[in-house]
């Protein structure tokens, strides 16, 4: 047996800008075992809900994650709205989908950049983020914030986008797609990228199902799992077909995300086309009483919001199960038997968002 070395990976590691710690047990450069430890940035949100009113909690929910913040806010609002039996105006729901899908594009572009960086492809990294910058500009133009918008609200959304602006945005989306296309080609076809990703970090369909993988990680292993199929909010009027790959390796996970960007851009065009006129919020009176599990699709997969109100301004319980949390057991499975050089690529392939995970 070769000599075993333990290489610490994280919580401070340059390819992984977030604090998860993995002890990699190596034989030469082969990983034989992985021991994860999480909990470096626990923030105690579950208690916070007893100190902030349920309307202020939206801002807290948005800050669970710095990348997919808007969808977190929506997930929370949706939970409260269901508890309070509120009817949300159609326009507000379409706007939520618009910002949500734009968040997905932004998140996937960010991931593509980071993943390219993890395999040492710096120029691809920079160019992905250059395109992402355009998406952020749209955010800033429409909500005022580049990452955290404060646009979601219990009962609807807080700001509207005028029809003129939406038409302009349709052009901007086309431009983004045009700039994104050559990069997508690189991700899908480049030789060195394939060398680093294909047949690396394999996760079988059975394992994906049993270990509870969600989002692109599950879809890349052949599970057609997408919460948007639940047709919450405006997805009622917008048909979404989950993008599924069957290879189950890092490359398949990349392909899923690359294609999802196209899908999201397309969805946004449909939103612009279909969005009805009207109110953007309903008046909220009273306090939530009862409980609800709200499930929405994040860029990283399914996020579950559990809210329980007791008829006062403050919630009783508030719990979030984020996608990365669900994807850590599959990750450990993928890591066994890979070489050290593959570790960053595999860890990044689940698109880990540790800040989400630890709440």
């Amino acid at each position, binding site marked *: 047996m070769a000599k075993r070395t333990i*290489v610490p990976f994280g919580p401070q590691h340059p390819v992984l800008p977030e604090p998860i710690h993995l002890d990699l047990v190596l034989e030469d*450069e082969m990983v034989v075992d992985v021991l994860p430890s999480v909990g470096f940035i626990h923030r105690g949100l579950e208690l916070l809900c007893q100190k902030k009113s349920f309307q202020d909690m939206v801002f807290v929910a948005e800050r669970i994650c710095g990348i997919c913040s808007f969808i977190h806010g929506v997930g929370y609002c949706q939970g409260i709205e269901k508890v309070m039996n509120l009817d949300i105006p159609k326009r507000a729901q379409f706007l939520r989908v618009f910002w949500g899908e734009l968040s997905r594009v932004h998140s996937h572009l960010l991931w593509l950049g980071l993943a390219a960086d993890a395999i040492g492809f*710096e120029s691809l*990294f920079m160019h992905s983020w250059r395109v992402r910058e355009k998406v952020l500009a749209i955010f800033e133009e429409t909500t005022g914030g580049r990452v955290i918008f404060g646009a979601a609200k219990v009962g609807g959304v807080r700001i509207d986008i005028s029809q003129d602006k939406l038409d302009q945005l349709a052009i901007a989306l086309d431009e983004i797609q045009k700039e994104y296309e050559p990069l997508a080609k690189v991700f899908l076809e480049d030789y060195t990228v394939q060398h680093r990703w294909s047949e690396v970090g394999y996760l079988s369909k059975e394992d994906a199902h049993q270990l509870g993988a969600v989002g692109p990680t599950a879809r890349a292993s052949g599970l057609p799992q997408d919460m948007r199929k639940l047709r919450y909010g405006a997805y009622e009027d917008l048909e979404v077909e989950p993008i599924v790959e069957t290879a189950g390796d890092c490359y398949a996970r990349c392909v899923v995300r690359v294609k999802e960007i196209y899908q999201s851009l397309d969805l946004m065009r449909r939103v612009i086309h279909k969005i009805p006129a009207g109110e953007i919020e309903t008046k909220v009176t009273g306090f939530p009483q009862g409980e609800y599990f709200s499930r929405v699709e994040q860029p990283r997969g399914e996020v579950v919001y559990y809210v329980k109100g007791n008829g006062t301004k403050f919630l009783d319980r508030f719990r979030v199960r984020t996608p990365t949390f669900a994807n850590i057991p599959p990750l450990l499975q993928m890591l066994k038997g890979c070489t*050290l050089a593959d570790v960053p690529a595999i860890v990044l392939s689940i698109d880990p968002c540790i800040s989400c995970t630890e709440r």
Partner: protein
Amino acid sequence: MNAWIWGIVGILLTPVVAGLVGGIDRVITAKMQGRMGPPVLQPFYDVMKLFSKQNLVLNRFHHDLVICSLIFTVAAVGLLFAGENLLMCIFALVVGNVFLVLAAYSTNSPYSMLGADRELLQMLAAEPMILLAAVGIYMATGTFDINLIASGTHSAIQYLPGVFFGLIYVLTIKLRKSPFDLSTSHHAHQELVKGLSTEFAGPSLALFEIIHWYETVFVMALIYLFFASRPIVGIVAVLIVYFLEILIDNINARVKWDLMLASAWVITLIFGLGNLMLLFILK
């Protein structure tokens, strides 16, 4: 006497030239990535700043080994400019490299150790081709003496296109650029943090940078030797080759070591050895 002066001039000028080239490299790389990039003099600022920092050495040998490495690398460049034996220069460079690996091994950090392992692999991949290049130059010009090679009337390149190609291929390894920046890269953005140089801090890291400058000039000089009879063509060729390296760096991901080793040897065998065989038969 003249040789001594040339050697010293070479040693003194190298940091200036290599630093500038490094700075221009960074600007071009940045431009290729759609960025602005640092000022051209940034490498000098970096090194100066590193020297002003505290030197965190992990044990008695660490810093000394880096200094040994510097001495041998500088000697290699000095001998090259002094016009000594080409083979001797190459081996001096290898010895300098080995000292660097020893320095990394002495630290006991897993990143550094694995980086050192990979550096050895890289040397294994690159050195055969560099030696073949030296042999090729000998076969083309009939001498290992750099003075004679440089003052010769015909360039080695016309006999050695294959060797030249092979040399460019392994140059990526020597310059620590993607796809072959496995042991340590210019950015601390890889699975081994900064691999070989992870545990180097402050002045040690500055010395490491300076060693890399000398290495860069050494390999560039090697390229120049192929065009020695026409200095202008030589310099232009060196610039083009360096630009090519930047381009290759920017259009490739970092590959794994097995591919590096295999491809470097295949190229060495086919282009390097094949070229030499042909030369041997035809001459």
